[in-house]
C-alpha cells in the first residue's frame, strides 16, 4: 500500500493546530470574565482571531464548569433559552496563574526565537 508523504503545508497545519490547541482554554477563560452563551462566545473568539470548533467548545465549557472554573445559568433571551457562562472565583485565580505562565512562556520562546533569528 502506498502512503503519500505529507506535504510541507500538511505538516505546518498539524503543528499550527497543536500549537493553538493548548492556548484555547486560556482564550475561553479570558473571554468568560464577561458573561457569554456558547454562540456569542464562539463569535467573540473568532473575532479575536481564535477560531474554535463548536464540537470542541461545548464539551470544554462543560468540563471547565465541572472543574469549578465556570458557573452557568439558563436564562431566556430573545424568546429562547440560553445557557450563560461566566468565570467563577476559582476560575479567576486559575486564569491569573495561567496568564502568568503564558506570559513567561511567551517571553522565553520570544527570546529563543530572537536568538535563533
Amino acid at each position: 500500500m502506498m502512503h503519500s508523504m505529507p506535504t510541507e503545508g500538511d505538516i505546518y497545519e498539524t503543528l499550527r493546530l497543536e500549537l493553538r490547541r493548548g492556548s484555547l482554554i486560556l482564550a475561553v477563560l479570558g473571554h468568560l470574565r464577561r458573561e457569554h452563551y456558547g454562540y456569542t462566545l464562539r463569535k467573540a473568539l473568532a473575532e479575536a482571531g481564535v477560531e474554535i470548533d463548536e464540537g470542541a467548545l461545548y464539551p470544554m465549557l462543560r468540563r471547565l464548569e465541572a472543574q469549578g472554573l465556570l458557573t452557568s445559568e439558563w436564562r431566556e433571551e430573545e424568546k429562547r433559552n440560553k445557557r450563560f457562562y461566566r468565570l467563577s472565583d476559582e476560575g479567576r485565580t486559575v486564569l491569573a496563574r495561567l496568564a502568568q505562565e503564558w506570559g513567561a512562556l511567551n517571553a522565553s520562546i520570544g527570546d529563543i526565537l530572537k536568538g535563533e533569528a
Partner: protein
Amino acid sequence: MDLIERYLAAIGRQLPATQAGDILGELREELLSRQEEREAALGRPLTRQDVEALLLEFGHPLVVAARYRKTQQLIGPEVFPFWLTTIQWSLAILAIVWVVLTAIGVLLGKTQADARHAAPDLIPTALTVFGAITLAFAAFERFGKAGFLRDWKPSRLPPPDRATRPRAGIVAEIAVDVGFIAWWQGLIRFQDFFPYPVHLQVALAPVWAAWHWPILAYAIFGIAADLVALARPAWVRTNTGLRVGRYLYGVAILVEVFRAGHWVEVGSPLISPGVLSIIQTNFDLGMRVGIGVAILGMLLQVGLDLRRGYRQRQAQPDVAAKA
C-alpha cells in the same frame, strides 16, 4: 426545523439521560443561532438542503455525542506502549507455538486437517489473546489502575552488554516450553500424525512415566525462569543462577532416564518378532543418541550461561540485591 430536531434526537440517544436535556438545549441554541445568521446573510429562509448542509458541517451525531464522553479512548497514550509490547510478545509466543506444532505436522507428512487436531486454530486464538489483553488494559485505564505500569527503576533495565540474552530467544523458549507442556500433559497428541503404519504401535517406555512430574516441573521452572529474565533482565546473577539450576536439574533427570537403557516400546500384531526386535533396537539407539546429545547440550548451555553471566557482571555489578 424537523431536520434539526431529528439531528438532536440522534445525538440525544448517545448521551446519558441525566445530561441529555442540558446538552441538547445548548446545541439547539447553537444550531438555531447559526440558522438565523445564515438566513440573515442570504436574506431568505433556509431551504431543506441548506439545513442539511448546516448539519453536515456540524458533524455526525455519533461524533458530536462522543465528545461529551468522559472516556475518549480505549487505550490512552500512557498505557499504549505497554499494551503494544504485551500484544507483540503474546502474539509472538502464540505464533511460534503454532508454527512449531504445524511444522511438526507437515514434516511428518500429515494433512492440514490432521495438523489442526494438534495445533490450535491460529486466527481465533490470536483474536482471543488480542481481545483479552486489550480488555485488561482498557480496564486498567478505565478504573485508573494503570499506575503500576509507571512503577519502574532504571536499575531494572537490561545491561547494555551484548551478551544479554535476546528477548526474541527468551520468547521462543517460552513458546517451545508451552508446546512441550501441552504435549506432555496430553493436551495435544503428536502420535496422531506419527509417520509409521497404523499397525505399528509406538509408546514411551515406563521410565518416562516414572519421571513424568520431575520433567513437567523442569518445563514449568524453565518458563518461570524465562519470565523472570524478561521482566527483570538486570538481575544478571539471579537469571544466570536460574538457568544454570534449570539445566543442571535437566541433566540430573536425563542421566537417570539415560540409565534405563530402554525408552520406547514398539509393538505390532502384524510384524514378525524378529523385525520388531530390529525396529525396537533402532528406536532405542536413536533415543540413546538423542538423550546423550541433550545432556551434552545442556552442559554446554550451563558453560555458556556461566560465561555470559561472568561477562555481564564484569560490565555491570548485579543489582538484584538492591532492586
